[in-house]
């Protein structure tokens, strides 16, 4: 079927994009696993010897060396930001699952029923999905501003003696950011479900009605189960987006660590910028993220490719 020339062309068509993905996505992903077992400040190369052979003396930079599981031990037991970050990521995910996703689904169901004005609702709700998270972080600062902001002015807490510092107070700022994140996530989920709802065979609904099911039963017993592929996509998007959360925190904290807003993604980045790079330790945190994210990724891949593999 294929001429020799066609074969060469086919190899190039696959090979060049594959090379890019391999070199700049998969190689770094694997490299972070390796680097997580090393200690390296980024100065000089990495020697394949145990770090115990290089006693650290003040003033003399230690070369990169094998560090065993020490980075993991440090992260889990000795790094004050680690468990708060895990907790915050978990809260982020929980809020997405409990609030943003059902809200988005509700929007979609209502709009799908062809309520009057649906197109306007859909367009307006959808706007935040187009905006960058950096921009979202900036415009919400106006809402949360302690002295001048919308919320404090409305609730009368904008005087210097009774200010609420929504974005600075470590007990509040995560929740304040989660409102911003849901503002974007809910309509995102809405769009995905709208596509799913359109694809549901109308005769299924018809049959349910004939059988005497009410709207609530029709949705949960008939429509929702047939949207299984979309449900999985939404689940994956939800988990991945809550692991990726970074931009809002960076903008809100002006690029500095801010108490209350520790996230795994933010900690990773803190270890590669600045004077002292901790490549090994940063990679360790990256691997933790990798392991967690492989769960939803596997679920999605199983769902997406299982039919073809048969």
């Amino acid at each position, binding site marked *: *079927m294929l*001429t020799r020339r066609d074969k060469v*062309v*086919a190899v190039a*068509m696959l090979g*060049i*994009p*594959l090379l*890019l993905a391999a070199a*700049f*996505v*998969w*190689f*770094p992903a694997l490299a972070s696993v390796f*680097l997580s077992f090393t200690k390296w400040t980024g100065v000089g190369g990495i020697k394949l010897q145990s770090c115990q052979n290089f006693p650290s003396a003040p003033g003399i930079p230690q070369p990169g060396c094998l560090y065993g599981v020490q980075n993991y031990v440090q992260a889990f037991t000795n790094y004050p930001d680690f468990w708060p970050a895990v907790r915050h990521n978990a809260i982020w995910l929980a809020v997405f699952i409990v609030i943003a996703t059902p809200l988005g689904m509700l929007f979609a169901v*209502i*709009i799908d*029923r062809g*309520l*009057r*004005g*649906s197109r306007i*609702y859909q367009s*307006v709700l*959808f*706007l935040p999905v*187009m*905006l*960058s*998270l950096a*921009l*979202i972080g*900036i*415009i919400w600062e*106006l*809402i949360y501003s302690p002295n*001048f*902001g919308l919320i404090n002015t409305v609730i009368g807490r904008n005087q210097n003696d009774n200010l609420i510092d929504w974005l600075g107070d470590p007990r509040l700022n995560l929740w304040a950011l989660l409102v911003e994140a849901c*503002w974007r996530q809910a309509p995102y989920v809405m*769009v*995905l479900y709208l*596509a799913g709802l359109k*694809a549901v065979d109308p005769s299924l609904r018809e049959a*349910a*009605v004939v059988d005497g099911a*009410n*709207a609530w039963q*029709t949705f949960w017993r008939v429509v929702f189960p047939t949207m299984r592929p979309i449900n999985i*996509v*939404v689940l994956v998007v939800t988990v*991945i987006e809550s692991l990726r959360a*970074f931009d809002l925190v*960076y*903008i809100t904290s002006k690029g500095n660590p801010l108490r209350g807003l520790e996230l795994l993604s933010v900690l990773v980045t803190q270890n*590669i910028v600045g004077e002292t790079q901790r490549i090994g330790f*940063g*990679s360790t945190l*990256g691997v933790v*993220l990798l392991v967690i994210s492989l769960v939803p990724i596997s679920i999605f891949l199983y769902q997406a*490719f299982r039919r073809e593999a048969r």
Partner: protein
Amino acid sequence: MTTVTAARPRAPRLTTAAAQIFMIVMTLLWVTPIVFALYVALRPITETNKLGYLSLPRHLTLENFANAWTQSDMWRFFLNSVYVTVPAVLLTLFGASMVAYVVSRLAFWFNIPLLILFTAGNLLPPQVIITPLYRIYLAIPLPDWISGSGLLYNSYAGLIVINVSFQLGFCVFVLSNYMKTVPTDIDEAAVIDGATLWTRFWRITLPLCRPALAALATLVTTWIYNDFFWAITLISTGNKRPITSALANLQGQFVANQNMIAAAALIAAIPTLLVYVLLQKQFIAGLSLGSAKG
């Protein structure tokens, strides 16, 4: 269509009214942050410092927009966005459609593993790979005419490369699914006529994929334009940053004038707002393509 509507369970009037009220309240809530930002950006800082943001306006002025534009060389950041986004989108779509074509038309044993590899890569949180990637970028030299830094790090080329590599996965996934639905008859007829693989891809199949390519182009352009993370971590020179990531610097530069920051952010949103107004259908189609097959 009429049968479809008639088949739906008829909602009682009360439910409809409740739904209507709920949607009106939500829509108003949703639009508030944007309208509020616009309102603040239109007012002088001296006024809002005295009265707060939530107050009746004495003056409405475009001064903040003008100042944000001139005092920060904003045109330069926009130009950076163009330098990065345009080539990145074209290369992503070109590369992804090549892979998608081969995978959907030729029966290789490795097609499924390959698709899985591409798709999974796109789902990784970028922070998983950033640490090694950062070192790789510091280690790859580039000639001076491509990169002022002499490295892949801190260069437009570097930013293009990572955006392409990362977005390829999603586009390969979508396009290979799409191409499987494109009829193969013409393709097969062309084989008999002796057309080469490339001709069949470029002249026959790709034109049939225009709807999917248009939807993906809209989606990926918006995503790459909105990218913040790669530019923050892989570009160290402030004035090389595309506009979205430059907002972080502008926030520092205009720290005493939140109204001007809001104006700058809204200026940065103009391209996405244009897409929102003109190409919303394409954008949604792109998202739906990605999830429909799932």
